């Protein structure tokens, strides 16, 4: 059964997603991040659909569980496309975006096939376990990919603040989800861990809303401001 906390987290995420889409219609410069906007739109649709399925079939129903895991896998794949779009933005000035897109698509397809193959070998029957582990694998790969994008971003002399915030927000999301997934595997009885994943899920659209509405496309952050601790 969902409590007030779950509802508040869901509402915060959904409102932030709607805000990002509304802001994109107002500020046309955001259309450069088409893949990212597509992902946010998919997230918003998913929130509505999952709410409807939840209301109709209940939290513990097979319908909801199947929908949750499979939609999560599709959304994670869409998020990869969004990261690829960010990568293309970083390389735009160096005219390598075409090659990079092709390379990233190959990596993405390989990762998806690899994650699916490994998971199928481990769980040939249980479809929900398949989706759950598939998502875990995708989160981890997403975390590594985002970190590589981050390294690419730092290799530039004047990183754009918007890109810095977007890439780090995605990295935190993927890293947090990977950690939450690993913790749930290690300590399945710990119920408090079930709150981690939705909270991370709500933080990402909130962060996107902040970045798009408050940080201008032209803002640059000096490298020394980022490289302070390690």
């Amino acid at each position, binding site marked *: 059964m969902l409590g007030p906390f779950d509802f508040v987290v869901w509402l915060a995420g959904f409102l932030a997603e709607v805000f990002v889409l509304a802001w994109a219609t107002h500020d046309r410069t955001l259309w450069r991040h088409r893949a990212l906007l597509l992902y946010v739109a998919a997230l918003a649709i998913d929130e509505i659909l999952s709410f409807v399925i939840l209301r109709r079939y209940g939290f513990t129903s097979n319908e909801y569980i199947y929908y949750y895991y499979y939609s999560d896998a599709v959304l994670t794949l869409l998020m990869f496309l969004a990261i690829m779009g960010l990568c293309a933005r970083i390389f735009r000035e160096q005219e390598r975006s075409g090659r990079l897109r092709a390379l990233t698509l190959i990596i993405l397809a390989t990762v998806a096939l690899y994650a699916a193959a490994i998971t199928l070998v481990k769980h040939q029957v249980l479809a929900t376990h398949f989706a759950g582990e598939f998502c875990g694998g995708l989160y981890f790969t997403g975390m590594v990919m985002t970190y590589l994008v981050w390294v690419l971003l730092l290799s530039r002399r004047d990183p754009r603040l918007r890109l810095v915030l977007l890439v780090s927000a995605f990295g935190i999301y993927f890293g947090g989800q990977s950690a939450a997934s690993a913790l749930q595997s290690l300590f399945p009885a710990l119920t408090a861990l079930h709150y981690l994943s939705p909270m991370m899920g709500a933080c990402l659209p909130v962060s996107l809303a902040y970045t798009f509405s408050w940080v201008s496309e032209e803002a640059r*952050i000096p490298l020394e401001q980022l490289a302070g601790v390690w």
Partner: protein
Amino acid sequence: MHELLVLVLASILTLYLGIRYWRALLWSASQHKLSDATRELGEWIDGPHGEQSLAVVCALLRVCPKLERGGDRKLIIVGLYDRLLGVTEKLLPKPGGERNPWIAAERRACAYFAAILLDQRITRTSQWYAGQVTDSST
């Protein structure tokens, strides 16, 4: 074993990017230029003991009339971060009694952030007061 490895790696990378994200946020928030009303305060923050000036700026914020409702949530988070830095500084060993330059720079950024809030509040109050004076004269 596999899950433990994922957990360790994911925790390290999340913490690393979390710190970077926070720094970028703090930096973007402190990029506003101060007006004449608070410029001297900004110079004082940049001075030799500026890292300890957050408390003074917060005291000034409290005495400045506030038009908007609600608390300064951003300032609460920045205040907590400043306190965390203060505690870290006390715990870290100081060779020759020198201050850690990174912590000092971070605490200055916190004080500068509060100074921007103060500056915005003064500007809003002045504009409101100017509007009131114009209304009563007309």
